[in-house]
């Protein structure tokens, strides 16, 4: 029953205006009129009471009663209202358990209504109001679902009452009935009856439109189009853009009808021909568009596009031309005909790019302008994207050129939207894919950064990748340029996306580059961006760079800290060794810095802690050595000794070991531990490989022993020296000289003389060029000493009886002494030469004197004695002459500027031996007769 109600809803709407019958039974129907105002109070009656009153009335009323027909019709009306109420209540109450009962009541009321109306028609067939009874009956049949009976009632109505107020509506309903039964001719006629009725306009537009369809069904397309056009014009639609939704729906429906009609006429000529005769029709473009759309729905893409092309051709100055172009593009786009699409877009671009003539003379509405602008941008993007994709797929140079062209067009016209549309990045991608990195980087940068702000992660990543490639491709200056950019970008990326899975590697690589280009501060900044959860190897490598950077910046304490951290990593033994060495070097450098700043004690603390932190490192020994050197320089010998001992313990085989021993010796020496020092030197001379060092050490040891009066050890050392080092000769001679002195001090003249003789012997065996003044002096002194010993021997031999024997001994001693003095004087040492010369002169003089004063033979008489003494004088005189000769020899040195003790003594002797010459005096003035 509900379904039936719905079918007739349309009908009910159409019949919404009812005619209220006023009759004599007014008093029975008091509640039916709200307009009745009584001066006397009358109690209102219920519908039920009214219906019962009418029914009761009819039971007792005769057929010829004038009021009976009115009562029947009124009761029919009440029954129909009741059926409607039942239907409404039934529809409003959901899950009504009494639904079936209600349907039954509903049907009963309808049947009652039909029975009453049919009674009225039967009993009063000529009543002038029967058009209304028929109309009511048709309606009630329709509500009951008795369609044919309903139509029959209407047919009867239009036939019998052509002037009825219900005529137009009934014709319309009949037209609809014909149309639904595909009786298009009947429908066309019935609609025409509605159209031509001058009294009504309620059904006019609908009827015109439906007649158009009826004609359409009869393939009377032009006539159908005429009706459709009439409906449109009758409706008076607002401008296309201003329609509300229901209006738009209707508008579309009308134009769809027109479009279909034209489409069935075929091609684009009919539409042009039709409108050629109606140039003022304001919806020509909509007509073309609709036809085009219909073709499109029929997948007649070429026809669809062609329809609009024709429009653009026939109406070149229409404001709808841009829309037509856009729609054509859409058609090709949706159809997938790319060649046609690109052709259309190219054409569109030519017409509407921002530099085209269109914009110069344009009077297009703003909304259209905006649409063009927006669409053009969209299509430029489409073209860029298409050719870019093509290039990515096949790497065709042609595709590259096209993509390049469209990207450039975009950037030329829509640079302000480039970031928003990601064009900088995409164009960068295109260029980069074609290995044009140096061009690509500029666009990647525009995409990625706004000043120093990173705004596009993907583009930023691309700048990093591309700059890295550029670093490897370009010459030195550009290489640095790209490297700096790469580093800056990596820094930004790392700061912005520290947790990105690529960040760690990017940062590490940039840090490596920074380090390799000596940008140590940046390298440090970068490594600090490495996240804590990065791979251990990455963190380790970053730490390496960081530490090295700190080191190169002279920030050694920070470098040390990082190296220390690195040692906590689980790495290979060799790596650990290297890190330990670097750690040690960082500490060493701290010491060096303190030292350079004049903070010696602080420096030493660093040097010494090296041996605690990294005793096995190469630099640790050097550090300790420097600490020792510092203590030595500051004469802190006790500290020096402590650390030297430590050095010897930690680094027994170190190359500085020898030097350390020397320092130890010096430290001992300066801390009054001379003997210990000497022992160290002596030790050096045994293990040292360098002959020079060995020699020097042994000499040092000997001198130390000597200075500390450990003569036995000194002698041992000098003897060892003489034994081992015969060259250089001067030092060798010196060693023998020292032995002479030491043995002399030790009251061992025999050994002293042994070394004097060894000294003299070595001199004889040595080339002149290897001798020095000192060595000559030492030898001459030794010779002089031996000569003096002989001189003493000479003096001891008195010329007493047996004179001959003693004379021989004295002469022999004299000869030896003279020979030795003569030898001593040959070394060119002035002092010794003059002493020797004086001594020789003295020996001769003393021998002469000894002869003259020798013991006389006992048995000589006076004459013999006199003769003997004359002989003695003859013997002695040559020696005296010799003596004078040697004394004078000494005086000969005066002209060379020499006047020493021996010359003075020689002169004194000459005054005795040769007074006539040498004892004469200077002439002294008695006074000097001068005042000033």
């Amino acid at each position, binding site marked *: 029953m509900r379904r039936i109600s719905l079918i007739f809803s349309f009908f009910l709407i159409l019949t919404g205006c009812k005619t209220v019958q006023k009759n004599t039974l007014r008093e029975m129907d008091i509640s039916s009129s709200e307009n009745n105002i009584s001066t006397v109070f009358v109690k209102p009656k219920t519908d039920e009471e009214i219906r019962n009153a009418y029914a009761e009335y009819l039971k007792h009323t005769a057929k010829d009663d004038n009021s009976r027909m009115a009562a029947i019709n009124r009761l029919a009306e009440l029954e129909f209202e009741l059926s409607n109420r039942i239907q409404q209540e039934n529809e409003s109450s959901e899950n009504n358990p009494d639904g079936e009962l209600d349907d039954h009541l509903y049907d009963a009321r309808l049947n009652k209504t039909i029975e009453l109306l049919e009674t009225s028609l039967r009993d009063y067939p000529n009543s002038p109001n029967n058009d209304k009874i028929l109309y009511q009956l048709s309606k009630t049949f329709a509500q009951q679902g008795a369609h044919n009976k309903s139509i029959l009632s209407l047919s009867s109505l239009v036939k019998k009452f052509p002037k009825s107020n219900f005529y137009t509506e009934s014709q319309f309903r009949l037209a609809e009935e014909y149309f639904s039964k595909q009786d298009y001719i009947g429908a066309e006629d019935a609609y025409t009856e509605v159209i031509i009725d001058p009294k009504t306009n309620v059904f006019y537009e609908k009827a015109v439109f439906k007649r158009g369809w009826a004609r359409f069904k009869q393939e009377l397309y032009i006539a159908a189009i005429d009706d459709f056009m009439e409906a449109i014009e009758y409706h008076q639609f607002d401008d296309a853009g201003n329609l509300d939704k229901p209006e738009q729906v209707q508008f579309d429906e009308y134009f769809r009808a027109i479009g279909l009609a034209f489409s069935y006429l075929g091609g684009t000529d009919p539409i042009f021909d039709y409108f050629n005769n109606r140039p003022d029709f304001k919806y020509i473009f909509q007509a073309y568009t609709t036809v085009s759309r219909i073709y499109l729905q029929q997948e007649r893409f070429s026809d669809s596009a062609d329809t609009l092309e024709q429009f653009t051709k026939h109406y070149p100055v229409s404001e709808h031309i841009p829309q037509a172009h856009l729609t054509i593009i859409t058609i090709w786009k949706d159809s997938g005909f790319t060649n046609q699409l690109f052709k259309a877009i190219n054409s569109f671009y030519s017409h509407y790019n921002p530099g085209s003539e269109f914009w110069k003379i344009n009077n297009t509405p703003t909304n259209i302008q905006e649409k063009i602008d927006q669409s053009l941008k969209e299509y430029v993007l489409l073209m860029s994207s298409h050719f870019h994709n093509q290039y990515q797929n096949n790497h065709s140079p042609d595709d590259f050129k096209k993509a390049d062209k469209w990207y450039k067009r975009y950037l030329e016209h829509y640079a302000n939207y480039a970031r928003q549309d990601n064009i900088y990045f995409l164009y960068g991608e295109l260029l980069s894919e074609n290995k044009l990195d140096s061009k690509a980087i500029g666009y990647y940068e525009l995409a990625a950064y706004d000043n120093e702000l990173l705004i596009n992660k993907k583009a930023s990543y691309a700048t990093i990748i591309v700059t890295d490639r550029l670093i490897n491709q370009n010459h030195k200056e550009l290489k640095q340029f790209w490297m700096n950019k790469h580093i800056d970008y990596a820094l930004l990326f790392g700061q912005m996306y520290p947790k990105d899975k690529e960040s760690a590697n990017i940062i590490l690589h940039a840090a490596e580059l920074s380090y390799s280009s000596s940008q140590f501060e940046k390298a440090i900044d970068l490594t600090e961006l490495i996240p804590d959860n990065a791979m251990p190897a990455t963190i380790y490598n970053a730490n390496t760079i960081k530490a090295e950077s700190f080191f190169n910046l002279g920030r050694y304490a920070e470098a040390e800290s990082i190296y220390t951290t690195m040692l906590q990593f689980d790495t290979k033994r060799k790596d650990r060794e290297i890190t330990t060495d670097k750690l040690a070097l960082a500490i060493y450098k701290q010491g060096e810095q303190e030292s350079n700043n004049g903070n010696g004690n602080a420096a030493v603390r660093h040097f010494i802690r090296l041996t605690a932190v990294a005793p096995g490192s190469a630099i640790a020994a050097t550090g300790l050595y420097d600490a020792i050197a510092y203590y030595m320089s500051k004469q802190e010998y006790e500290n020096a000794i402590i650390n030297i001992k430590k050095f010897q313990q930690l680094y027994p085989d170190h190359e500085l070991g020898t030097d350390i021993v020397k320092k130890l010796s010096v430290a001992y020496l300066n801390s009054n531990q001379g003997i210990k020092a000497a022992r160290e030197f002596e030790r050096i001379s045994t293990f040292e490989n360098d002959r020079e060092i060995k020699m020097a050490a042994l000499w040092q040891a000997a001198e130390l022993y000597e200075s500390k009066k450990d003569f036995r050890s000194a002698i041992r050392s000098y003897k060892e020296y003489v034994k081992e080092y015969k060259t250089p000769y001067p030092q060798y001679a010196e060693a023998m000289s020292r032995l002479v002195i030491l043995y002399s001090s030790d009251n061992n003249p025999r050994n002293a003389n042994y070394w004097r003789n060894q000294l003299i012997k070595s001199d004889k065996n040595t080339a002149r060029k290897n001798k020095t003044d000192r060595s000559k002096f030492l030898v001459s002194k030794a010779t002089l000493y031996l000569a003096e010993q002989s001189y003493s021997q000479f003096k001891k031999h008195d010329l007493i009886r047996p004179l001959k024997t003693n004379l021989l001994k004295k002469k022999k001693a004299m000869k030896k002494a003279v020979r030795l003095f003569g030898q001593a004087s040959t070394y060119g040492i002035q002092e010794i030469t003059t002493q020797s010369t004086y001594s020789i002169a003295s020996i001769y003089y003393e021998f002469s004197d000894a002869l003259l004063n020798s013991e006389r033979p006992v048995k000589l008489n006076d004459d013999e004695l006199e003769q003997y003494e004359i002989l003695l004088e003859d013997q002695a005189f040559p020696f005296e002459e010799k003596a004078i000769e040697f004394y004078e020899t000494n005086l000969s040195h005066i002209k060379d500027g020499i006047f020493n003790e021996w010359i003075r003594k020689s002169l004194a002797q000459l005054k005795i031996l040769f007074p006539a010459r040498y004892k004469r005096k200077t002439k002294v*003035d008695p006074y000097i007769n001068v005042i000033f």
Partner: protein
Amino acid sequence: MKLQNRIKLIPVALVFFMTGCSTKPNPVTAPSPSPGSETSESRIINEFDDIDRVYYKKALTALYDDDLDKAETILIQLIDSNPDFAGPQANLALVYYKKGAYKKAKNEIKKTLELNPDLPEALNLSGMLEIEDGNIQQARELYLKALVLNDEYANAHHNIALLYDIYFQDIEKAIYHYQRYLELTKTGGRETQDWLEHLKASLKAKG
């Protein structure tokens, strides 16, 4: 006491004043028999007042008479009041030389030569003192300088002759200067004359 002495010494001082001043080097060829005699030439000075001259004369007389202590006393007083005069200084040096006080003599002669570096007697005395110290070369230079200043300085000729003879054993030069000495003194002494002959003979013997 001093004032009285001064009054007494006035006539002597006047004589000395008249004869003691000269702008030339002292032309004395031999010591005067007595200081201030007519034969000795003196230099005129204004600064050395009459009383000083009297005392100076007394000092020189004492020196001449080998009264070395007296000469020393007077000269020291004179030098004290007239420190800028070379003559008193030179004679004080001579006093010390004669006494054998060579160190003092050398000290005084150094002051003398600072006051008057061209005083031949001082140069001669200085040469003699250098010989005592063994500075033979230096002594020769001083003698030669004295002779350049006064070639007729007999004692300087003798002393350099002796130096060449003994120390340099340059007999030819010794002979020359012995001869010049003998020429200037005329009564130079038999001893020097004999030695000169000996030298000439030995030179001849050497060929």
